């Protein structure tokens, strides 16, 4: 892929000054920046909650917080990390990169774009404010199983429901915008099968979001009715069915976990090809793999419910379908390895994070397969083994993908190279602490420690102390990341348009100046 572009200086189209620039902006880069900062701030808020959890679990016994508050911490930590960090960060990256990768001036629906962002601070403002109300915030886990989240919930659950509704609207609007942009604004010559993989990953993710966010909205609405209007969707005493809640929730929930990983697949694919100096191996199989993962993700939901008492045929069906999803996932890993094979590899920070992504995400995939084996899941389910699994796919998976993408594109965004030495230091500290934190959780889980426990038996004490130390190091290390980002915004070696050696041939974004003009491509580039 190679293009000829001219970028003129559109001084009169530059950003407005002051606060109104951010409040009223319809520019995809400004909105992308807002999303990314929002997610970064939420990372520290959700992270502090994790620190409270780990401080309490450092030793057996109750020392720092009471179970009531502990449950609020686990619940809000999960909700914030999923809906406030990973998802907005991906949308931020999409806003910045999609127009630049497909050769468009901006997103297709710029005003809608502004609205989708500004809904988020409202949603999380409401959610977090519940923590300061007399009855306390949501305390029923991020999966909010009924009837604990309905009949037995604090009345602040109504704020939680409202906030989930707003998040859902924001995600749906964002997805509509992304799909419209991808279908209508590609540069001439960019056929679907020539789209960059990050664009593909987001196209598929956006469809998943449109399909499942309404299901989430549906389930919280049913809760709202049960709590306030006397219906009995989930209330057994009124003829309802608490298990129905779980079916509906996980019909949303499992596609949701893939929403949190597909864009990361796209990002690391770009990074691995750039730093292996070799185009991605098996482009079309990468696309088909993502598409099959997305389709299969609709028929595996009950693997989260193996202990609710499904009939044998149901258990077996969901075991087989879940194992099936490991095939396209494995194919992606093989393709990344084949891309590195016989490349010319260098190890800049984005590449380090991507290599760690491939290795550690694979470990998360292995524990995923173990969990899919129903009889074995009877022993793993709702223990720290599951906590280890999903943290391996979400932290060194999704989050590393985001961090890698941030390092990869930061010079493009700011025009300045970040500090490579500090970047490497950030990587190694993060890599070591992430494993010290989450690897021992496998053992603690197998040994029998259930999840969402504020206190535990003495035999789990050693590993829990170790895990807490790892978690504190991990948390502190991310302050270094904040420093590196701010430093790169303020100063640094000037970046060339292609930033990375040879990247100029890999995507349209590298043909623009660094930093790029306010409206990315005012003249559509031609793909040769």
């Amino acid at each position, binding site marked *: 892929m190679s293009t000829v572009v001219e970028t003129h200086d559109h001084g009169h189209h530059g950003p407005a000054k002051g606060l109104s620039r951010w409040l009223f902006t319809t520019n995809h880069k400004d909105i992308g920046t807002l999303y990314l900062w929002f997610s970064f701030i939420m990372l520290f808020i959700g992270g502090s909650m994790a620190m409270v959890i780990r401080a309490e679990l450092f030793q057996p016994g109750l020392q720092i917080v009471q179970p009531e508050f502990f449950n609020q911490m686990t619940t809000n930590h999960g909700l914030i990390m999923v809906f406030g960090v990973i998802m907005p960060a991906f949308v931020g990256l999409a806003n910045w990169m999609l127009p630049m990768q497909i050769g468009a001036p901006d997103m297709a629906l710029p005003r809608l774009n502004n609205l989708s962002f500004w809904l988020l601070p409202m949603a999380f403002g409401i959610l977090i404010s519940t923590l300061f109300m007399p009855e306390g915030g949501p305390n029923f886990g991020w999966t909010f199983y009924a009837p604990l989240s309905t009949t037995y919930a604090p009345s602040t659950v109504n704020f939680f429901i409202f906030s989930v509704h707003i998040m859902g609207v924001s995600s749906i609007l964002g997805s509509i915008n992304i799909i419209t942009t991808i279908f209508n604004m590609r540069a001439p010559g960019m056929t679907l099968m020539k789209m960059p993989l990050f664009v593909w990953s987001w196209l598929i993710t956006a469809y998943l979001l449109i399909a499942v966010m309404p299901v989430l909205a549906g389930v919280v609405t049913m809760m709202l009715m049960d709590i306030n209007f006397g219906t009995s969707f989930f209330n057994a005493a009124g003829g309802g069915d608490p298990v129905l809640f779980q079916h509906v929730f996980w019909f949303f929930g499992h596609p949701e976990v893939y929403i949190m990983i597909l864009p990361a697949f796209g990002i690391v694919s770009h990074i691995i090809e750039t730093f292996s100096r070799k185009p991605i191996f098996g482009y079309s199989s990468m696309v088909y793999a993502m598409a099959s993962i997305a389709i299969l993700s609709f028929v595996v939901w009950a693997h989260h419910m193996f202990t609710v008492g499904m009939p044998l045929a149901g258990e077996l069906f969901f075991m*087989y379908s879940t194992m099936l999803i490991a095939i396209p996932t494995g194919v992606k890993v093989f393709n990344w390895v084949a891309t590195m094979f016989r490349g010319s590899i260098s190890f800049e920070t984005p590449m380090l994070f991507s290599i760690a992504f491939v290795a550690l995400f694979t470990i998360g995939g292995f524990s995923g397969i173990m969990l899919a084996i129903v009889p074995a899941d009877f022993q793993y389910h709702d223990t720290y083994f599951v906590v280890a699994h999903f943290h391996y796919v979400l932290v060194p998976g999704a989050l590393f993908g985001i961090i890698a993408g941030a390092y990869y594109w930061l010079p493009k965004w700011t025009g300045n190279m970040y500090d490579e030495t500090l970047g490497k230091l950030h990587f190694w500290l993060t890599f070591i602490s992430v494993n010290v934190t989450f690897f021992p959780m496998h053992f603690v889980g197998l040994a029998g420690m259930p999840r969402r426990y504020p206190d535990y038996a003495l035999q789990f004490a050693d590993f829990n102390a170790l895990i807490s130390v790892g978690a504190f190091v991990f948390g502190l290390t991310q302050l270094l990341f904040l420093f590196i980002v701010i430093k790169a915004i303020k100063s640094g070696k000037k970046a060339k348009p292609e930033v990375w050696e040879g990247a100029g041939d890999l995507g349209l974004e590298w043909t623009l100046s660094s930093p790029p003009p306010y409206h990315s491509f005012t003249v559509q580039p031609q793909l040769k």
Partner: protein
Amino acid sequence: MVMPVMFSSHVFSEDSDYNMKVGVTEVSQSIFELHMLIFWICVGIGVIVFSIMFWSLFKYRKSKGAVAADFDDNLWLEIGWTVAATVVLIWMAVPATQVMVEAYDDAEGEINILITGHQWKWHYEYLEDEVGFFSNLATSQEQINGEVPKGEFYLREVDEPLVIPTNTRIRFLITGNDVIHSWWVPDFAVKQDAIPGFINTAWTNVPEPGIFRGACTELCGIKHAFMPVVVRAVEREEFDAYIAEKVTLAEAERLLTSKNWTKEELMERGESFYATNCSACHQAGGQGIPPVFPALDGSQIALSDSARHIQILMEGVQGSAMAAFGESYSEVDIASVITYTRQAWSNGKNGDGVIVTPKDIVDYKNRIDL
């Protein structure tokens, strides 16, 4: 990467404290073997994939002058590894299905036990003999708060374990009273959700006597971590004697209802009942945790409304965490805890001094039955 693999092969040995419990039943042992099989297959795949990857990273370093080759696709390779992955998965699925069929069998048991999850304790009932009891955490609050040293079985001990006979097929019928709980005994590889309105089944057949400890594994509120499961398996004769004694005790309990109770006797019984069943929410001093759990000390109901007081204990409060205790406890227990809460703390001198006796509870029940 090699490190965790080596470390895990050490930790994952059969007698390790940090691997899945092998357990004592046939099912738990098959599950353990299945778990190890899947684990080693994953390790195998990991070794292959990671060695190719790290060898490539090492061999094709740009700093050593590697030049990128010019290839980006290979259909046969793609087909090859897709097929290979499928074959490996079938290799896993076959034994998994076999163990699953073995574990999932809901034929009747010789002994049927109804297990009900309550916030936050387990209730066990032997269906054939119609006797039942609650099983509460036995670890003291002082140990939890770190005021006294923690005992060996910290958070894994109960006041009364479930007793089952060895070498007998036992069927558990598992349900929930309020929210969803989950009953787990790793040594039997039994984990089943206790869901209100549903009765799930699970079964076991324990070959040897012993004490087996488990936990609640579904988030059920504040004391989710404080409702352990303890099962004691004993020889058949010992079990029969145990049940016979339970039946006699239950009979004696029924007789107690007609006895004339003094205030002191009720107070004494009520105090211990309160400590095990009410203090989790209303707190030992009756101060509660407002606004979630109301204070009983100074509550209008406890001071001057004994009729409503009885009704709350018998029926619970719909749509709140206050359960209907009358369904699961004897008249004596209910009467004594009401009397206790009416006389304890400052209620004794500020209240109307009404004493509720087991007979009042019987009357209440008879009135409802009409």
